[in-house]
């Protein structure tokens, strides 16, 4: 029984519960619903909640815990001898799951009966071929231990799926009966179901906390795995990035960090003056009509997906810079470069800088402007000598927020900056960033035991800490500034 069918059944039980609850409440009141404490709908709602919600929670927990239990069980069956040289238990377990899945497909397609399966062993020479025939390709031969574990895994999966269906349906029915039996004229159904709904609200707001916990936990655990395989000292202080498939890689973060900061610097160098000046012009000088036209147009840039900017860098900006600047100046010959990525990222950041600065400039009290004009300053003198100093902390905050966007940006650098990790000053040279390497180390066939893959989590950790730090500082600066004038 699949999960979706189970979901449907639970929801159907809930809906039935609603109808039954309404009927029972009406019956309890003898047809005169005024005798009830709550409206009949609330009685129905309480039955619905009690039958569906606990069953759904149980289903969710079961789905999370089942693979954990199965892995543990299969892991216990695998002897140390079954783990090949240089492999790990995780890899063997992945094999077990694949074989189990393949056996399932074999039985389903009629290539093997249940009795056959019980009789065969791993010694069966054509097992690999038969598994391949149903689309499960295996790298090596299936060992005896793996096969036994896979058979047991499959068996246990079937048993547990049945148990899951039985348990959740039973939970739904139990909740239904429990809630139905409580219905009476004195039953405070409204209060009970409102309390229940409030609990759901609280649980929903915890999702955000759980997400953060999940992010930190996954980054931390895998980073610790990485640092067990690769010395943290080399990661933090080595100046070369040179991953090898056969081990012996140099995985120093500095070339990536340099590329990240260089691209972000170029981006900010472009975005901050353009964004700030257009914000100043729009808020201090522009006519109402120009403002109504230009402000939304610039903000459209913020709504464009980064993949579009990436394509723009790859197809238009990269070749343009190469043909008009890099090659005539003899600085480089590739279309991927720090300049390409930085310039396009700068375009992406214009609306961030301009709309944040716009808010901040508008928050500077009019009395400051009037005072300045009263002393005979021109408009630009007022802007430069009064408004900008007053708005400076806020603008710094805006720039920091933009910097954090730039550092975390992925698609533009993946498509525009190149993949070569190096420490270089030439902006027309291809360089790479932390995010590019996270993508390249984690896409494709990844096995989660090698430092070359796990380094992505350490890089992710660095990225997370970096952007979080920038954001906290930026928000602190912005908030502190706002308090001054409110």
């Amino acid at each position, binding site marked *: 029984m699949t999960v979706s069918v189970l979901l449907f059944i639970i929801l159907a039980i809930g809906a039935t519960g609603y109808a039954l609850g309404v009927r029972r409440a009406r019956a309890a009141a003898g047809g005169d619903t005024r005798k009830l404490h709550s409206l009949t709908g609330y009685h129905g709602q309480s039955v619905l909640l009690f039958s569906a919600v606990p069953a759904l929670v149980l289903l969710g927990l079961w789905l999370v815990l089942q693979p954990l239990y199965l892995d543990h069980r299969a892991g216990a069956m695998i002897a140390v001898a079954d783990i090949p040289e240089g492999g790990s238990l995780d890899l063997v377990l992945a094999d077990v799951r694949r074989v189990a899945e393949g056996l399932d497909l074999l039985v389903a397609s009629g290539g093997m009966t249940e009795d056959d399966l019980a009789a065969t062993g791993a010694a069966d020479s054509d097992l690999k071929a038969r598994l391949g025939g149903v689309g499960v390709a295996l790298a090596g031969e299936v060992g005896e231990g793996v096969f036994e574990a896979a058979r047991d895994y499959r068996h246990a999966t079937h048993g547990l799926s049945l148990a899951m269906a039985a348990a959740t349906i039973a939970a739904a029915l139990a909740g239904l009966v429990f809630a139905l039996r409580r219905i009476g004229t004195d039953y405070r159904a*409204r209060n009970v179901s409102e309390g229940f709904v409030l609990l759901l609200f609280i649980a929903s707001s915890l999702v*955000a906390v759980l997400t953060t916990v999940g992010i930190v936990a996954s980054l931390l655990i895998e980073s610790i795995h990485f640092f067990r395989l690769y010395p943290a000292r080399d990661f933090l202080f080595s100046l070369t990035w040179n991953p090898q498939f056969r081990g012996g890689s140099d995985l120093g973060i500095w070339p990536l960090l340099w590329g990240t900061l260089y691209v972000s610097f170029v981006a900010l160098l472009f975005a901050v003056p353009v964004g700030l000046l257009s914000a*100043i012009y729009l808020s201090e000088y522009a006519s109402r009509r120009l403002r109504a036209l230009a402000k939304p*147009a610039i903000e*459209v840039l913020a709504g464009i997906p980064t993949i579009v900017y990436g394509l723009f860098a790859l197809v238009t900006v990269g070749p343009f810079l190469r043909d008009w600047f890099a090659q005539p100046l003899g600085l480089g010959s590739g279309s991927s470069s720090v300049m390409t990525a930085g310039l396009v990222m700068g375009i992406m950041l*214009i609306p961030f800088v301009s709309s944040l600065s716009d808010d901040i400039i508008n928050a500077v009290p009019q009395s400051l402007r009037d005072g300045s004009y009263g002393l005979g300053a021109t408009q630009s003198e007022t*802007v430069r000598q009064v408004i900008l100093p007053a708005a400076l902390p806020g603008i710094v905050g805006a720039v920091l927020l933009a910097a954090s966007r730039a550092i975390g940006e*992925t698609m533009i650098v993946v498509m525009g900056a190149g993949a070569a990790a190096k420490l270089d000053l030439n902006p027309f040279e291809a360089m790479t960033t932390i995010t590019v390497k996270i993508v390249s180390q984690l896409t494709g066939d990844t096995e989660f035991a090698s430092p070359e893959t796990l380094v992505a989590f350490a890089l992710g950790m660095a990225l997370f800490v970096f952007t979080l730090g920038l954001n906290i500082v930026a928000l602190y600066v912005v908030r502190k500034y706002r308090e001054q004038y409110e």
Partner: protein
Amino acid sequence: MTDASAIRPGIRASLMTPDTRTRRRNAAEARFRLYGRIAIAIGLAALVVLMGSVLANGLGSFRQSFLTLEVHLDEKVLDKSGARDPEAMKKVTTIGYGKIVDAALKATIAAEGIVVEGLTDKDVSDMISKEAAALVRNRVLADPALVGQTVAFKVLANGRIDGYLKGRVTMDSAERDSNVSPRQLELADALVARGILAKSFNAGFITGPDASELRPEAAGMGIAILGSAYMMLVVLFLSLPIGVAASIYLEEFAPKNRFTDLIEVNISNLAAVPSIVFGILGLAIFINFAHLPQSAPVVGGLVLTLMTLPTVIISTRAALRAVPPSIRDAALGIGASKMQAIFHHVLPLAAPGILTGMIIGLAQALGETAPLLLIGMVAFVRDYPGGLFDPATALPVQVYNWTQRADPAFVERASGAIIVLMVFLLAMNMAAIVLRRRFERRW
């Protein structure tokens, strides 16, 4: 005592003629304004160039070169038994059909009297897309009665020939290209002149599945659109209820204490976490820990849900806050419970704002690429996904995939897919704006 004679010489005290200092200050003022204008012009020019480059590169992909051929479906090749048994006919592979299509083109060339110097058989058969044979085969298997007849087929031309018609391939570049010869381009000219080779609207680009690296002419984004649609469904069904529930709690019920402060700080931080970190989360939790299938829309949907949740919560809270307290007070005053006041009065009044925020969150999720790369949505998928757990790809990821391929024809495809993506985004944003204009109430 003021000393009137202390006025320095050179500064004439007249308002009618500006002195040098005033002129300098006025010039600085004019310069400053100019800088502002330039900045705005740069911003707007960037938008125009960006859009222009996407449109210029991508519009061509909606029209594709097709050859109109009279194909004689030879019974001797396609159905030797003559019994029209579909099972037996399936044994004839696309290679057999390919030969028939080649023969049809050759016959057409001969019938039209086109002579091209040094044209080889391979040149002729390479004019046609390798996908054409599959098309003919599918048509024949669907309707075995066609065998033995001569049927008109509109088949895809090879990607390079299509490139020639669109100006991407020229005679000069063909000299240097091993995949296409100038003879083929001459033949293409002749076929165009006779109306056999022509460009027309290519529905397969929008609805068809992706094709291999060697057949850019047949690549479509049907699976990507379907995959994106599935993901948006997951995002809608998860982040709307969760986001609204969380916002109601935080805005209407939460006491001011450390626990709720923690949640608030969390939400504002999550809004600023780089999207790729959510991809790492999805890979570690949903795929490695919970063993959900790779490349499945359900995983993508979950990751995008977590990513858009802060956006949804922030805009929902703003919408709830915009409902004046007098509405709540009135409801409570006539005996409604707090929950009733919220569900019967506050929520309906805040609904347009909530929906606007949701649509903007969905638009953000639709354009997101980076986290999807990490959870395996880059895989090459040929079968339409039947459900949330089947492998699929997503529209922005398809764009990325196409840009990674060697043939420049894929750049056109990628830009075309971007146009489709932008049309979806534009429609969603328009819906949000209309919703806001029509239903938002100012108090």
